[in-house]
């Protein structure tokens, strides 16, 4: 091959990626930078947005306890949702993995399919199931003797967590499922032949090996729940605000864009820090599994 061909080869990947790169710089990075800048602008009821550099919005978020409470609620809901999906999703993935081929792919489709069905439709389903004090869920739980008096689900954090856990569950099952695929079934048989009981096998053999899958699923579920919009907006109503619904209100109702931009920027930065930080922790802790 001549030198000209080598040179062309060196340029080829850049020529091929250049259009996409320009698109991403032009309509992703620039708008994101503009949003961060917007959070430092001033805003008034009558004067609108003033392009000056001011810390007013950040100061308001830092000092007004309303925002601390709202962010704490956002992350509390996300943490509970994550725990719920891990506690139910991990065993389900394990059970699924032990099924026969045809049943396995059928139920995998049933459980993962909802991932691609409109979040609005799925949340509407929960709103119908919750439906006031004599909703279907409460009737069922009461007739089963699980609860005595109806639990309020609509317009509460409980309802938000249940509906969000349903929306996020496929991500957890998928993540644990992927970890299970790397697991050698012979290890389980070896443990059994050495006299380990089912509890010991799950605790000492299965759990340590699927833990990375559970944790990476947890990161996905947590970050998606903390920034969820449709489910908190429909189940939580107008009063119970989380970060995403508050930012929506500031942008489209109050029209205080700079404050909304500050809330969004804070949410983005917090999530990036949490996700990158826990990813690094997991990779260090489970380095041998990822190798």
């Amino acid at each position: 091959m001549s030198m000209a061909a080598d040179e062309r080869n060196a340029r080829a990947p850049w020529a091929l990626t250049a259009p996409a790169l320009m698109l991403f710089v032009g309509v992703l990075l620039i708008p994101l930078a503009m949003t961060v800048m917007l959070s430092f602008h001033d805003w008034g009821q009558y004067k609108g947005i003033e392009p000056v550099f001011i810390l007013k919005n950040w100061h308001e978020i830092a000092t007004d306890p309303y925002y601390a409470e709202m962010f704490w609620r956002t992350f509390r809901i996300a943490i509970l949702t994550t725990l719920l999906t891990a506690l139910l999703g991990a065993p389900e993935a394990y059970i699924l993995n032990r099924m026969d081929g045809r049943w396995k792919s059928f139920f995998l489709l049933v459980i993962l399919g909802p991932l691609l069905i409109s979040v609005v439709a799925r949340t509407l389903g929960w709103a119908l199931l919750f439906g006031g004090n004599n909703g279907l869920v409460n009737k069922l739980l009461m007739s089963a003797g699980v609860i005595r008096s109806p639990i309020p689900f609509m317009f509460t954090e409980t309802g938000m967590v249940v509906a969000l856990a349903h929306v996020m569950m496929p991500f957890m099952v998928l993540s644990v499922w992927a970890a299970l695929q790397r697991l050698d079934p012979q290890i389980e048989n070896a443990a059994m032949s050495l006299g380990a009981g089912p509890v010991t096998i799950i605790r000492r053999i299965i759990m340590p090996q699927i833990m990375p899958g559970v944790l990476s699923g947890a990161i996905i579920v947590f970050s998606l729940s903390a920034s969820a919009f449709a489910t908190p907006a429909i189940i939580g109503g107008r009063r119970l605000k989380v970060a995403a619904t508050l930012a929506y209100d500031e942008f489209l109702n109050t029209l205080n864009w700079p404050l909304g931009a500050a809330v969004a920027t804070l949410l983005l930065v917090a999530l990036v820090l949490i996700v990158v930080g826990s990813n690094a922790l997991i990779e260090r802790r489970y380095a041998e599994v990822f190798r």
Partner: protein
Amino acid sequence: MRRNGPLALIFHTIFVIVMVAPILVVCLVAFTPEGFLSLPTNGFSLRWFRTIGNYPEFIHAFWVSLGLGALSSFVALLFAVPAALAIARYRFRGRDALAALFLSPLMIPHVVLGIAFLRFFTSAGLGGSFAALIIAHVIIVFPFALRLTLAAATGMDRTVEMAAVSLGAGGWTLFRRVTLPLILPGVISGWALAFIQSFDDLTMTVFLAAPGTETLPVRMFLYIQDNIDPLVTSVSACVIAVTMTALILLDRFYGLDRVLAGKGDTGR
């Protein structure tokens, strides 16, 4: 491997019922003959599907969503296919960084993207326009288009291409007659997955849509905010039907577990 015990199967049954219940209840209520929210205990009726016809804004929103999904997924592929070929075939400096950038819309909360695009397109004088929606949707569906194309390009047999080159094919002919047909299943699946993502997006679109460019999820969301009645369940049932059709096609064509697991993310 051990089999599932009875306890495991009971857990599994309850799990599956809970996963399916909200979707099933929406579809059932859609067929109610009553004028209020109820399960169709007195027979099935299509009255709420016929009622959709009296709400032209839902019909219009449906066409907006369909056009937006089809077009933005197509445009995303125009950018994603060359990028995927470059990332799959060449080892060059900045390759990992580029792949991370192209997949980043998956990581950025859609509410942040919605705000960023609202600010950007309003300053550019495109606020509330269909063009702005297309560009924004191209960005959010790009990772899905890229991932499946990348998986196809990585697993492709390059010897066929070499044979074509040795026979004198080059440049555009090589791409159109050899490379593209080989990666086509990945490209079409990428389009379908991108379409579903665009068709279902609410969080970002709700910031950008104006009356006239409202998509179906946005229209449904705004409607639900005011009141929940059987009409919105029949609209939801239609949305679920569209998605299920795309889903079944995707599963037959490519395998849903492969699509969802996103195998071969950056070809590493």
